[in-house]
Protein backbone atom coordinates (compact mmCIF):
# COMPACT_ATOMS: atom_id res chain seq x y z
CA UNK A 1 0.00 0.00 0.00
CA UNK A 2 1.49 3.30 -1.13
CA UNK A 3 1.25 6.49 0.92
CA UNK A 4 3.13 9.78 0.82
CA UNK A 5 4.56 11.74 3.73
CA UNK A 6 6.72 14.74 4.51
CA UNK A 7 9.27 14.38 7.25
CA UNK A 8 12.63 15.77 8.23
CA UNK A 9 16.14 14.47 7.96
CA UNK A 10 17.96 13.59 11.15
CA UNK A 11 21.66 13.21 11.86
CA UNK A 12 23.67 10.64 13.77
CA UNK A 13 27.33 10.05 14.34
CA UNK A 14 28.62 7.13 12.30
CA UNK A 15 31.32 5.79 14.59
CA UNK A 16 32.59 3.43 11.91
CA UNK A 17 33.90 6.36 9.91
CA UNK A 18 33.92 9.08 12.55
CA UNK A 19 31.63 11.48 10.79
CA UNK A 20 28.09 12.79 10.81
CA UNK A 21 25.54 10.98 8.68
CA UNK A 22 22.20 12.39 7.62
CA UNK A 23 19.24 10.07 7.15
CA UNK A 24 15.53 10.24 6.47
CA UNK A 25 13.36 10.07 9.59
CA UNK A 26 11.30 7.37 7.92
CA UNK A 27 14.01 5.06 9.24
CA UNK A 28 12.12 5.35 12.54
CA UNK A 29 9.57 2.96 11.05
CA UNK A 30 11.59 1.31 8.28
CA UNK A 31 15.18 1.20 9.54
CA UNK A 32 16.31 -1.67 7.36
CA UNK A 33 15.31 -3.64 4.31
CA UNK A 34 14.34 -6.37 3.80
CA UNK A 35 11.98 -6.59 6.79
CA UNK A 36 9.10 -8.74 7.92
CA UNK A 37 6.56 -6.13 6.79
CA UNK A 38 7.92 -6.04 3.25
CA UNK A 39 8.10 -2.27 3.68
CA UNK A 40 10.39 0.06 1.77
CA UNK A 41 10.59 3.74 0.96
CA UNK A 42 12.26 6.21 -1.32
CA UNK A 43 12.70 9.87 -0.64
CA UNK A 44 13.52 13.10 -2.41
CA UNK A 45 14.85 16.15 -0.64
CA UNK A 46 12.68 19.24 -0.46
CA UNK A 47 13.02 22.60 1.22
CA UNK A 48 14.06 22.98 4.85
CA UNK A 49 16.06 19.79 5.47
CA UNK A 50 12.88 17.79 4.84
CA UNK A 51 12.00 15.03 2.43
CA UNK A 52 9.02 13.91 0.43
CA UNK A 53 8.75 10.19 1.13
CA UNK A 54 6.93 7.52 -0.81
CA UNK A 55 6.27 4.52 1.41
CA UNK A 56 5.14 1.04 0.48
CA UNK A 57 3.99 -0.69 3.65
CA UNK A 58 1.08 -2.58 5.19
CA UNK A 59 -1.89 -0.59 6.42
CA UNK A 60 -0.96 -1.26 10.04
CA UNK A 61 2.40 0.44 9.61
CA UNK A 62 0.86 3.38 7.75
CA UNK A 63 -1.56 3.78 10.62
CA UNK A 64 1.36 4.26 12.99
CA UNK A 65 3.20 6.70 10.75
CA UNK A 66 0.13 8.78 10.01
CA UNK A 67 -0.48 9.63 13.67
CA UNK A 68 3.17 10.43 14.44
CA UNK A 69 3.46 14.22 14.70
CA UNK A 70 6.88 14.11 13.07
CA UNK A 71 5.31 12.93 9.83
CA UNK A 72 2.83 14.82 7.67
CA UNK A 73 0.52 12.52 5.76
CA UNK A 74 -0.35 13.63 2.25
CA UNK A 75 -3.66 12.16 1.12
CA UNK A 76 -3.22 11.22 -2.52
CA UNK A 77 -6.13 8.89 -2.98
CA UNK A 78 -8.13 11.40 -4.98
CA UNK A 79 -7.10 13.81 -7.71
CA UNK A 80 -7.49 16.77 -5.38
CA UNK A 81 -6.32 17.20 -1.79
CA UNK A 82 -9.48 17.34 0.37
CA UNK A 83 -10.41 20.74 1.74
CA UNK A 84 -10.36 19.55 5.34
CA UNK A 85 -6.66 18.65 5.34
CA UNK A 86 -5.29 21.59 3.38
CA UNK A 87 -4.58 23.84 6.34
CA UNK A 88 -1.99 21.66 8.08
CA UNK A 89 -0.31 20.97 4.75
CA UNK A 90 -0.27 24.66 3.86
CA UNK A 91 1.09 25.55 7.29
CA UNK A 92 3.82 22.95 7.09
CA UNK A 93 4.93 23.88 3.59
CA UNK A 94 5.03 27.59 4.26
CA UNK A 95 6.94 26.93 7.47
CA UNK A 96 9.49 25.01 5.43
CA UNK A 97 9.89 27.91 3.06
CA UNK A 98 7.52 27.36 0.16
CA UNK A 99 5.69 30.36 -1.20
CA UNK A 100 1.98 30.44 -0.55
CA UNK A 101 1.49 31.56 -4.14
CA UNK A 102 3.28 28.47 -5.42
CA UNK A 103 1.12 26.24 -3.23
CA UNK A 104 -2.11 27.93 -4.24
CA UNK A 105 -1.10 27.71 -7.89
CA UNK A 106 -1.35 23.94 -7.68
CA UNK A 107 -5.10 24.29 -7.03
CA UNK A 108 -4.47 21.43 -4.60
CA UNK A 109 -4.21 19.01 -7.47
CA UNK A 110 -2.27 16.03 -6.12
CA UNK A 111 -0.05 15.77 -9.19
CA UNK A 112 0.80 19.45 -9.13
CA UNK A 113 1.49 19.53 -5.41
CA UNK A 114 3.76 16.48 -5.45
CA UNK A 115 5.69 17.85 -8.38
CA UNK A 116 6.05 21.27 -6.79
CA UNK A 117 7.87 19.93 -3.75
CA UNK A 118 11.05 18.54 -5.34
CA UNK A 119 11.63 21.65 -7.43
CA UNK A 120 13.57 23.18 -4.61
CA UNK A 121 16.16 21.78 -2.23
CA UNK A 122 17.89 23.25 0.76
CA UNK A 123 21.50 24.26 0.64
CA UNK A 124 23.21 22.11 3.22
CA UNK A 125 26.67 22.09 4.64
CA UNK A 126 28.53 21.05 7.75
CA UNK A 127 29.40 23.48 10.49
CA UNK A 128 33.07 24.30 10.88
CA UNK A 129 33.42 21.84 13.74
CA UNK A 130 31.59 19.22 11.65
CA UNK A 131 29.21 18.54 14.53
CA UNK A 132 26.03 19.83 12.96
CA UNK A 133 24.29 20.36 9.65
CA UNK A 134 23.57 23.88 8.49
CA UNK A 135 20.50 24.28 6.36
CA UNK A 136 20.47 27.35 4.19
CA UNK A 137 17.93 28.97 1.96
CA UNK A 138 16.21 27.03 -0.73
CA UNK A 139 17.68 26.79 -4.18
CA UNK A 140 15.87 25.85 -7.32
CA UNK A 141 16.74 22.35 -8.42
CA UNK A 142 17.02 22.53 -12.17
CA UNK A 143 17.17 18.81 -12.74
CA UNK A 144 14.66 17.94 -10.07
CA UNK A 145 13.86 14.30 -9.68
CA UNK A 146 10.40 13.68 -10.97
CA UNK A 147 7.88 11.90 -8.86
CA UNK A 148 7.79 9.13 -11.44
CA UNK A 149 11.39 8.20 -10.73
CA UNK A 150 10.49 7.20 -7.23
CA UNK A 151 8.52 4.34 -8.71
CA UNK A 152 11.87 2.70 -9.36
CA UNK A 153 11.80 1.07 -5.97
CA UNK A 154 8.45 1.89 -4.45
CA UNK A 155 5.85 0.52 -6.76
CA UNK A 156 2.14 0.77 -6.45
Amino acid at each position, binding site marked *: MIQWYICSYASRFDSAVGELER*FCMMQRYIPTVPNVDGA*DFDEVEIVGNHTLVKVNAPLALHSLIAVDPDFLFLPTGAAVIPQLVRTPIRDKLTALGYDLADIDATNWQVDALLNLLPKFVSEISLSLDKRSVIVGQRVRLLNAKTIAMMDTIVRG
Partner: protein
Amino acid sequence: MPPATPILDNFNRADEGPPPSASWVNALGGLKVSGNVCIADTAGGSHAASWNTLFPANQEAFFSIATAKPADNTATRVYARLVTATDVNSDRYFIHVISIVAANDQLRIQKRIANVTTTLGAQIDIGGEHAVGDQVWIRVEVSTITCFRNGVSQGVRTDTDLSGAGFIGLNYNGNANSDFDDFGGGPTPGIIASAQHRPALRSSRW
Protein backbone atom coordinates in the same frame (compact mmCIF):
# COMPACT_ATOMS: atom_id res chain seq x y z
CA MET B 1 24.30 -11.37 -12.36
CA PRO B 2 27.97 -10.41 -12.65
CA PRO B 3 29.15 -6.84 -13.13
CA ALA B 4 28.81 -5.54 -16.67
CA THR B 5 32.33 -4.15 -16.59
CA PRO B 6 35.79 -5.77 -16.35
CA ILE B 7 38.24 -6.20 -13.51
CA LEU B 8 40.65 -3.30 -13.79
CA ASP B 9 43.15 -4.35 -11.14
CA ASN B 10 43.58 -7.76 -9.46
CA PHE B 11 46.56 -6.47 -7.45
CA ASN B 12 48.53 -9.62 -8.30
CA ARG B 13 52.02 -8.17 -8.55
CA ALA B 14 54.94 -7.09 -6.48
CA ASP B 15 54.16 -4.76 -3.62
CA GLU B 16 53.92 -1.13 -4.68
CA GLY B 17 52.32 2.15 -3.78
CA PRO B 18 50.65 4.23 -2.72
CA PRO B 19 48.97 4.58 -5.11
CA PRO B 20 48.57 0.94 -6.17
CA SER B 21 49.87 1.71 -9.68
CA ALA B 22 50.19 4.51 -12.19
CA SER B 23 46.55 3.89 -13.10
CA TRP B 24 45.49 5.10 -9.66
CA VAL B 25 45.74 8.38 -7.77
CA ASN B 26 45.67 8.90 -4.02
CA ALA B 27 42.37 10.41 -2.93
CA LEU B 28 43.07 10.60 0.81
CA GLY B 29 46.11 9.11 2.45
CA GLY B 30 46.69 6.25 0.08
CA LEU B 31 46.16 2.61 -0.80
CA LYS B 32 48.90 0.22 -1.81
CA VAL B 33 49.50 -3.29 -3.09
CA SER B 34 50.73 -5.70 -0.45
CA GLY B 35 50.66 -9.47 -0.66
CA ASN B 36 48.65 -9.42 -3.89
CA VAL B 37 45.77 -7.48 -2.32
CA CYS B 38 45.06 -3.78 -1.79
CA ILE B 39 45.38 -2.32 1.70
CA ALA B 40 45.63 1.04 3.41
CA ASP B 41 49.05 2.66 3.36
CA THR B 42 49.01 2.97 7.13
CA ALA B 43 46.80 1.59 9.89
CA GLY B 44 43.84 3.63 11.08
CA GLY B 45 42.35 6.78 9.67
CA SER B 46 40.75 7.09 6.27
CA HIS B 47 42.49 6.10 3.07
CA ALA B 48 41.26 6.21 -0.50
CA ALA B 49 42.42 5.85 -4.06
CA SER B 50 40.67 6.58 -7.34
CA TRP B 51 41.07 4.83 -10.67
CA ASN B 52 42.49 7.69 -12.68
CA THR B 53 40.07 7.54 -15.61
CA LEU B 54 37.05 9.82 -15.93
CA PHE B 55 34.12 7.60 -16.85
CA PRO B 56 30.79 8.70 -18.36
CA ALA B 57 27.90 9.25 -15.99
CA ASN B 58 26.48 5.74 -16.32
CA GLN B 59 29.11 3.72 -14.49
CA GLU B 60 29.76 1.06 -11.93
CA ALA B 61 32.54 0.05 -9.56
CA PHE B 62 33.10 -3.17 -7.64
CA PHE B 63 35.54 -5.04 -5.44
CA SER B 64 35.86 -8.26 -3.50
CA ILE B 65 36.72 -8.60 0.17
CA ALA B 66 40.16 -10.21 0.00
CA THR B 67 41.29 -11.87 3.21
CA ALA B 68 39.44 -10.14 6.06
CA LYS B 69 36.00 -8.60 6.31
CA PRO B 70 35.68 -5.16 7.87
CA ALA B 71 36.08 -5.47 11.63
CA ASP B 72 33.06 -4.67 13.78
CA ASN B 73 32.24 -0.97 13.82
CA THR B 74 34.41 -0.25 10.80
CA ALA B 75 33.59 0.17 7.17
CA THR B 76 34.92 0.16 3.65
CA ARG B 77 33.44 1.94 0.69
CA VAL B 78 33.32 1.71 -3.07
CA TYR B 79 32.39 4.89 -4.85
CA ALA B 80 31.26 6.25 -8.21
CA ARG B 81 30.76 9.65 -9.84
CA LEU B 82 33.46 11.11 -7.63
CA VAL B 83 33.89 14.67 -8.85
CA THR B 84 37.60 15.13 -8.07
CA ALA B 85 39.82 12.06 -8.40
CA THR B 86 42.32 13.25 -5.82
CA ASP B 87 39.71 14.17 -3.20
CA VAL B 88 37.51 11.43 -1.74
CA ASN B 89 35.58 14.11 0.13
CA SER B 90 34.35 15.68 -3.07
CA ASP B 91 30.78 14.90 -4.15
CA ARG B 92 30.09 11.26 -4.90
CA TYR B 93 27.78 8.25 -4.52
CA PHE B 94 29.04 5.23 -2.65
CA ILE B 95 28.23 1.95 -0.97
CA HIS B 96 29.07 1.88 2.72
CA VAL B 97 30.06 -1.69 3.64
CA ILE B 98 29.70 -1.67 7.39
CA SER B 99 30.13 -4.32 10.06
CA ILE B 100 27.84 -3.97 13.04
CA VAL B 101 28.63 -5.13 16.54
CA ALA B 102 26.27 -7.89 17.72
CA ALA B 103 23.92 -7.49 14.77
CA ASN B 104 23.67 -8.28 11.10
CA ASP B 105 26.12 -6.35 8.93
CA GLN B 106 24.79 -3.72 6.58
CA LEU B 107 25.19 -2.00 3.27
CA ARG B 108 24.14 1.62 2.93
CA ILE B 109 23.64 3.52 -0.30
CA GLN B 110 24.96 6.99 0.40
CA LYS B 111 25.87 10.27 -1.22
CA ARG B 112 28.27 12.96 -0.10
CA ILE B 113 27.29 16.42 -1.24
CA ALA B 114 28.91 19.61 0.04
CA ASN B 115 30.72 17.58 2.71
CA VAL B 116 27.47 16.13 4.07
CA THR B 117 26.91 12.37 3.94
CA THR B 118 23.31 11.22 3.50
CA THR B 119 22.01 7.67 3.56
CA LEU B 120 19.48 7.19 0.79
CA GLY B 121 16.45 5.20 1.94
CA ALA B 122 16.64 2.46 4.53
CA GLN B 123 19.77 0.64 5.59
CA ILE B 124 20.26 -2.73 3.91
CA ASP B 125 20.44 -5.68 6.30
CA ILE B 126 22.44 -8.47 4.63
CA GLY B 127 21.07 -11.08 7.04
CA GLY B 128 24.47 -12.10 8.39
CA GLU B 129 28.04 -10.93 8.26
CA HIS B 130 30.18 -9.76 5.41
CA ALA B 131 32.56 -12.52 4.37
CA VAL B 132 35.83 -12.99 2.56
CA GLY B 133 35.13 -13.26 -1.14
CA ASP B 134 31.97 -11.16 -1.04
CA GLN B 135 31.73 -8.94 -4.09
CA VAL B 136 30.06 -5.57 -3.59
CA TRP B 137 29.36 -3.06 -6.28
CA ILE B 138 27.65 0.21 -7.02
CA ARG B 139 25.96 0.96 -10.32
CA VAL B 140 24.82 4.49 -11.14
CA GLU B 141 22.69 4.98 -14.21
CA VAL B 142 20.97 8.29 -14.86
CA SER B 143 19.26 8.90 -11.48
CA THR B 144 19.23 5.33 -10.26
CA ILE B 145 21.79 3.99 -7.78
CA THR B 146 21.87 0.24 -7.27
CA CYS B 147 23.78 -1.75 -4.69
CA PHE B 148 24.74 -5.33 -5.56
CA ARG B 149 26.19 -8.02 -3.34
CA ASN B 150 27.37 -11.26 -4.88
CA GLY B 151 25.38 -10.67 -8.03
CA VAL B 152 22.09 -9.84 -6.34
CA SER B 153 20.57 -6.37 -6.15
CA GLN B 154 20.29 -5.34 -2.51
CA GLY B 155 18.59 -2.01 -3.02
CA VAL B 156 17.78 0.69 -5.53
CA ARG B 157 17.58 4.40 -4.79
CA THR B 158 16.93 7.46 -6.91
CA ASP B 159 18.75 10.77 -6.65
CA THR B 160 19.67 13.62 -8.96
CA ASP B 161 22.31 15.56 -7.09
CA LEU B 162 25.10 14.13 -9.24
CA SER B 163 24.42 13.57 -12.91
CA GLY B 164 27.75 13.93 -14.67
CA ALA B 165 30.87 11.92 -15.37
CA GLY B 166 33.08 10.96 -12.48
CA PHE B 167 35.72 8.71 -11.01
CA ILE B 168 35.43 5.36 -9.26
CA GLY B 169 37.52 4.05 -6.39
CA LEU B 170 37.96 2.52 -2.98
CA ASN B 171 37.96 3.93 0.53
CA TYR B 172 39.04 2.49 3.88
CA ASN B 173 37.90 3.97 7.16
CA GLY B 174 39.85 3.11 10.27
CA ASN B 175 40.01 -0.42 9.11
CA ALA B 176 43.49 -1.80 9.00
CA ASN B 177 42.53 -5.45 8.98
CA SER B 178 40.34 -5.46 5.88
CA ASP B 179 41.55 -5.48 2.31
CA PHE B 180 40.39 -5.26 -1.27
CA ASP B 181 40.79 -7.56 -4.24
CA ASP B 182 39.67 -7.61 -7.86
CA PHE B 183 38.66 -3.99 -8.28
CA GLY B 184 36.75 -3.25 -11.44
CA GLY B 185 34.28 -0.98 -13.11
CA GLY B 186 33.78 1.51 -15.89
CA PRO B 187 30.98 2.72 -18.13
CA THR B 188 27.89 0.54 -18.19
CA PRO B 189 26.28 -0.41 -21.48
CA GLY B 190 23.73 2.34 -21.93
CA ILE B 191 21.06 0.57 -23.94
CA ILE B 192 20.86 -2.30 -21.49
CA ALA B 193 20.94 0.11 -18.63
CA SER B 194 18.02 2.20 -19.78
CA ALA B 195 15.94 -0.87 -20.45
CA GLN B 196 16.60 -2.30 -17.03
CA HIS B 197 16.05 0.81 -15.02
CA ARG B 198 13.39 2.75 -16.81
CA PRO B 199 11.13 4.08 -14.09
CA ALA B 200 8.25 1.71 -13.58
CA LEU B 201 5.54 4.21 -14.36
CA ARG B 202 2.24 3.28 -12.92
CA SER B 203 -0.86 3.41 -15.01
CA SER B 204 -2.20 6.14 -12.83
CA ARG B 205 -1.42 9.82 -13.05
CA TRP B 206 2.21 9.61 -11.97
